[in-house]
């Protein structure tokens, strides 16, 4: 643990001081940190997965506590935990499969029954979880029964090697760590390339001569728009500047640099312009399990205006932004209040903000929240790197990425400590 301390500390600092901008960077760094945690973790002879999970949880708890509003951190921690569990499970099932294959190579129903009767509780739990998992489109098309199909898919990663080396326990422990690191690398790769995967879908959504409205700045949106432009679609983009940070200015500059017909508008003009807009495409800070969106402040306004004018409100979100939690009072609990200096010049109003004068409470309060919560009913479509989804489908998507055991990271971790 001591070796990773400096790195850990670094991330904490970054989280606290908002030196990392954007959930993508946060997610990537978190994943990288966890990868190094895993690689440096000494794995005990037995229960390697448990040891890894505990280590990741301990770090994850600190990371989440460092910036509870940055949900991407928690998401990544949970996904790494999920990866560890999955890899462990796949190794176990592979081992079982190997045993079964060597012992009795009957049809698969017998195989499962044998597993149930003879083997460890972990396998039982894994089987139970896999049967709990609802069918996806892919499994629907393959006409194999779900209960039988799942073990195969989940063990796809290490299946071929697992069979041959399953007997060797020391190699198996190395195997687990190795597999986990592989998977985390994949995750990092996913995070890095999520823009491209989302942008690939742009041509399906943006058509000739359309007018697109967006708010603030989001790299995903930028790539999305640009992908459509590259496919020779000509369309116009309205960019609302996104007070108080005015990142829309940056986005507008980028879009213009890439040759898109761009109009920058003030946030107050959103309602005025939306009557001529065909589609609102925005990025998100996080997507909650109920399909609600935590987004830069002002998004609720845009979403309401879009709904008022029946304009589709499309949210682009990489899968690292999917948060398995259900929001409660998100406007307050998942928000953060930024400095008033972004809105007002302290010099002019310093006398009014003084707590010491008069009755002890200042006359002037300045409210500068960083995020808005957009309820799912205002969202028409989510576009993630896994395709387009309805808000009500989000919980299902989340079940693919997270295991139910990890939803609450903190409590488990504190109990462990």
């Amino acid at each position, binding site marked *: 643990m001591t070796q990773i301390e400096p790195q850990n500390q670094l991330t904490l600092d970054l989280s606290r001081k908002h030196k990392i901008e954007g959930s993508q960077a946060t997610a990537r760094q978190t994943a990288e940190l966890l990868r190094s945690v895993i690689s440096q973790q000494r794995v005990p002879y037995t229960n390697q997965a448990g040891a890894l999970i505990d280590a990741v949880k301990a770090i994850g708890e600190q990371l989440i506590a460092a910036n509870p509003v940055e949900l991407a951190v928690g998401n990544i921690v949970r996904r790494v935990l999920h990866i560890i569990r999955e890899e462990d499970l796949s190794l176990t099932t592979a081992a079982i499969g190997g045993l079964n294959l060597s012992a009795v190579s009957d049809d698969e129903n017998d195989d499962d029954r044998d597993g149930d009767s003879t083997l460890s509780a972990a396998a039982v739990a894994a089987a139970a979880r896999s049967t709990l998992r609802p069918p996806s489109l892919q499994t629907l098309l393959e006409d194999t029964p779900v209960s039988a199909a799942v073990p195969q898919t989940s063990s796809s990663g290490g299946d071929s090697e697992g069979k041959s080396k399953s007997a060797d326990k020391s190699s198996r422990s190395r195997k687990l760590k190795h597999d986990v690191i592989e998977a985390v690398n994949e995750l990092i790769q996913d995070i890095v390339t999520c823009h491209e995967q989302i942008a690939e879908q742009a041509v399906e959504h943006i058509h000739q001569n359309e007018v697109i409205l967006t708010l603030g700045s989001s790299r995903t949106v930028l790539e999305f728009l640009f992908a459509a432009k590259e496919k020779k679609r000509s369309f*116009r983009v309205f960019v609302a*500047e*996104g*007070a*108080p940070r*005015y990142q829309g*200015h940056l986005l507008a500059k980028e879009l213009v640099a890439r040759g898109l017909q761009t*109009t*920058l*508008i*003030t*946030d*107050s*003009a*959103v*309602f*005025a*312009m939306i*009557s*001529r807009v065909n589609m609102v495409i925005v990025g998100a800070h996080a997507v909650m399990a109920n399909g609600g969106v935590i987004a830069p*402040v*002002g998004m*609720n*306004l845009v979403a*309401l*205006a879009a709904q*008022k004018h029946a304009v589709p409100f499309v949210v682009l979100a990489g899968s690292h932004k999917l948060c398995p939690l259900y929001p409660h009072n998100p*406007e307050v609990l998942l*928000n953060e209040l930024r400095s*008033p200096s972004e*809105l*007002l010049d302290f010099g*002019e*109003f310093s006398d*009014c903000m003084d707590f010491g004068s008069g009755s002890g*409470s200042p*006359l*002037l*309060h*300045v*409210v*500068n*929240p960083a995020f*808005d919560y957009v309820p799912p009913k205002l969202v028409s479509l989510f576009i993630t790197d896994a395709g387009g989804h309805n808000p009500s489908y989000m919980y299902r998507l989340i079940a693919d990425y997270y295991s139910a055991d990890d939803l609450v990271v903190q409590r488990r971790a504190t109990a462990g400590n």
Partner: protein
Amino acid sequence: MDARRVSQVVPKVRQVGFVTHSDPNPPPQASRAQSVPIESNSGTPSDSPDFSPVMIPPPRHHSENLSHLRSAAVAVPESSSRRPMWDDRVAVVGSYNPGNSLLGQPVSPNSSEVNSEASTTLGWFGRNSSGKFSAGSSFPGGGFDLTTVKMENFTQLEGKKPEAVPERGGGAAVEVHNEVSSSTAKAKTTKAERRAMQEAQRAAKAATKGKGGGGGVEVNNRESSSNTLKAKTTKAERRETQEAQRAAKAAGKAQGNKPVAAAGGAGPGNILRQPSQNRDDPAVGSTIAGSDRRGGDRPPERERKKDVPPPRMQFDDQGRVNKSKKRAVFNQPEAKNRVELFRHLPQYEHGSQLTDLESKFLELDSMHPAVYKVGVQYLAGDVTGGNARCIAMLRAFQEVINDYSTPPGKTLVRDLTAKISSYVSFLIECRPLSMSMGNAIRFQKSRIAKLPLTLSETEAKAALCNDIDRFINEKIILADKVIVRHAATKVRDGDVLLTYGSSCVVEMILLYAHELGKQFRVVVVDSRPKHEGQALLRRLLAKGLSCTYTHINAVSYIMHEVTRVFLGASSVLSNGTTYSRVGTACVAMVAHAFRVPVLICCEAYKFHERVQLDSICSNELGMLVLVLVR
């Protein structure tokens, strides 16, 4: 019907003012004194005050009145045919009384109340208590032309009061008035009248070439109207004859179209009648009369169309743009990257106009310095806000009128109107007019058009300046006071009031409610590029109000705790939409989403008959630079 009768009394009482006023007056007013009774003779004058000078919701009333007139014109004498019509209107006035009582003020709009009014020697603003009750009705019902009517009644009294009070006791006033009017009506068979009669008969003959009934009406009109011609300006007379003949001809041509002639005949009469009212008491001027006059020689369909506001200039119409550019006082460089969506709106490169305009100051010898100054203020953004801009413009026009002298060979009415029009187009160049200013200009022009030809130049100028004063006082200042009082009743202890930008009415409401000792908190929502809310915030804080400041994007965050939203408006359009500072709709929408009541505070003079579905069809574009630079 009670209400109807009650309010019917009001206009009569108003005339008390005339009578008593003219009585003690020295010679210059002599003609006025005579003209007054004639008004009552003709039947219209006692009613005409029902119209506000602004004629804000005019189209409907106009066309109704006109068509009514025309259809009735066939055989019945005009005055009697008009009566029922007027009664209807009056009834409406009465029906709004409940609205008044909403304000918690007992309404007794009959003579007794008015008399008490008259006997008090309060200043203009001391009068607000009474003025308020009348104007207050505009809130609940929105029958706001009526409110102006009522206000006029009071204001007239005020104007007259100094003389009126010592002269007569209020109770007697009504009767006195009636007597006087009737007697004086009989008394007047002057030379002018005779001459006018002749003309009228001539005109009638011409008219009857084509048809039967209309002619009779004409003669009637003629008689009543020509009475006022006491001081005959021969030119005016000649014009009148011409007009009448033209009208008659038109009538003859359009055979089936009897009403035309009737209207034509009625028109000039109204002109002449108007003057006396104008001078005595400008607010009385019936807008109907005005439109009658103008539309007298036109077929009715066109007349009706005229009430519809002309389509706005579309700036993607290249031909018209070029034409207007030729007329422009200073050149407005067109924006290089025009926004496609706003092609129909003027898009200029801002920044250079001010220097350009300043450099042209000496060349613009036709421009009045006051107007120039206001124009520069608009351009530089020193004067903003519907009310402030409107007042600034009217004050400038006041100076224009004061400094005006009719050039030889021209008439004041035409020349001054043209002058004002040129000034207005200059102001439009500086910054597009607000709806309120459009209304004020319409009012101003109609005042000028209805100036009695009998007036000397100085008198006319005084009357016009007086008109402007009254407009500012009644339609803006007094209206604001009424709004403030009424809106303050909507503020309860513990409220959290949200406002957006900086509306002067809303500010007054907040301050007034604070003065009343109500405990509430204010949320000031602001937005780029103007950050008007900061100025408001500073003023509110200076008065000790507890404020929360935020930007428009955070409005859905703050809306949870808000209990009421107060918004100002630039205009309320006739389809019920509100035209206001950009972002107001966002705030209202979010408030709606959070089930928070939204109150729009708007003076009635800002109402406009245009309709608009969204903010793009017509708008004013600000400086592009402001968006880019923070």
